[in-house]
């Protein structure tokens, strides 16, 4: 592939991800409002789509304030970390045949590594703020993300076993005849729940629980630094949705429409599901979260892995 084609893909994916994340701030508010019998932001531009622009201008013009008692360097770096790690996860996504920034042979492992690194951002943000609530939020974020990271990795291993590769392009190609959501439905549900926890979305938004921790780890953040946390969260939602599509719902495969369109359509559907869950579910209790993670999800993920492995072993080596 020519270098300029590769550069063009990088620019398109980066710009697309940022624009989509900004647009998702509008999309989520609009979607939530529609689910709650309201209209949502519909004044700036047609249907309110320019709302993110107005929000961005507002956030950038805000005073860039660092609270006294905060660890300045870490405080400023923390929001950049989550944005960077989540954006890096985009590099392994296969949007269409050939349309991928880095066609890594360990793509899925790279994603798991990046989403684990993201926890540094939250823990350090909570710690460096010099605020009790922020610290509690950071602690919760660390505990929650580490717990759910474990079986998130285990839940996708069934897919990896069936596809025989960590490479996302290969995984999509392996689903030509049957989407993995059928044989791996348990893995799919576990991965989705882990993804909800990983992106700190309701019903697992304990690190930023408004009613108990003000805003958790980003209590002290304002202006564009706060904006980075939000962009990071929405990027995370999109990555998880895109991975759901890639791993379990056949990626770009679909009739008639071009592959990219299919991929984006499926991803948008899962983003919609994230928003629907936020509108419908209350926040779980902290002990429930931990108990569900370690006592139910982890054994189920292991069971799924063992059964998948056993069945594949019994079926013999896959046809080349």
């Amino acid at each position, binding site marked *: 592939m020519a270098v300029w084609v590769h550069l063009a893909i990088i620019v398109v994916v980066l710009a697309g991800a940022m624009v989509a994340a900004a647009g998702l701030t509008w999309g989520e508010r609009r979607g939530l409002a*529609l*689910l*709650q*019998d*309201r*209209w949502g932001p*519909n004044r700036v531009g047609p249907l309110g789509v320019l709302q993110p622009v107005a929000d961005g201008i507002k956030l950038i013009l805000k005073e860039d304030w660092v609270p006294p008692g905060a660890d300045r360097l870490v405080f400023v770096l923390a929001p950049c970390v989550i944005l960077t790690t989540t954006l890096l996860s985009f590099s392994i996504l296969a949007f269409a045949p050939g349309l991928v920034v880095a066609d890594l042979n360990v793509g899925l492992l790279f994603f798991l590594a990046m989403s684990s690194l993201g926890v540094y951002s939250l823990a350090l943000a909570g710690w460096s703020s010099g605020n009790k609530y922020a610290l509690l939020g950071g602690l919760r974020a660390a505990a929650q993300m580490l717990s759910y990271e474990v079986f998130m990795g285990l839940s996708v291993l069934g897919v990896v076993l069936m596809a025989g590769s960590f490479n996302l392009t290969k995984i999509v190609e392996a689903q030509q005849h049957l989407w993995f959501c059928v044989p791996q439905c348990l893995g799919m549900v576990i991965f989705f729940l882990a993804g909800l926890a990983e992106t700190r979305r309701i019903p697992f938004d304990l690190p930023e629980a408004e009613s108990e921790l003000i805003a958790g780890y980003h209590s002290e953040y304002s202006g564009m630094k706060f904006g980075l946390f939000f962009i990071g969260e929405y990027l995370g939602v999109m990555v998880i949705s895109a991975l759901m599509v890639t791993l379990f719902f056949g990626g770009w495969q679909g009739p008639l429409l071009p592959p990219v369109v299919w991929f984006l359509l499926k991803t948008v559907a899962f983003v919609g599901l994230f928003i*629907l*869950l936020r*509108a*419908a*579910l209350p926040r779980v209790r902290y002990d429930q979260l931990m108990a569900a993670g370690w006592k139910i999800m982890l054994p189920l993920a292991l069971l799924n892995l063992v059964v998948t492995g056993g069945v594949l072993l019994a079926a013999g080596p896959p046809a080349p």
Partner: protein
Amino acid sequence: MIRLLLGIWQVFLHLFAPRATVSYPEQRVYVPPRLRGRIILSRDPSGAERCVACYLCSAVCPVDCIALQSAEDETGRRYPEWFRINFSRCIFCGLCEEACPTLAIQLTPDYEMSEYRRENLVYEKEDLLIDGPGKYPDYDFWRVAGVEIGGKEKGEAENEAPPVDLRDLRP
């Protein structure tokens, strides 16, 4: 688990439910005629100011947003020399309207009085005074009041009994 999914489905159906929001500038809510909105000063059926500058509205105002200065004309009638309401403090409680003995000060159903500058929310007498009698078209304070002013003795007004003779003991 099933109930959880049913709940999520119910929320999804709300996507197609009618909206509770009124899209304000295009659609408007019904405004009851007695809504307590912008305050006005009304006039008699004869066209004279009703306000007699008794300061009761100013005294009863819980947020002290009404200020005025009384004066007397050549017939002895009191009237406000200036009358000022600071709407940036007003809480539209309507106590001034209840306190007013001459039904001069009234609250109207107009609520659209936003301003970009705070100073513009201070309404002077010429902003407050309207040309009509407001909610009470037939009421004229001087025609029912037992008050003596230039050109009208006590007991000469409409619905007004002549004054009691203080030096007479007969009923």
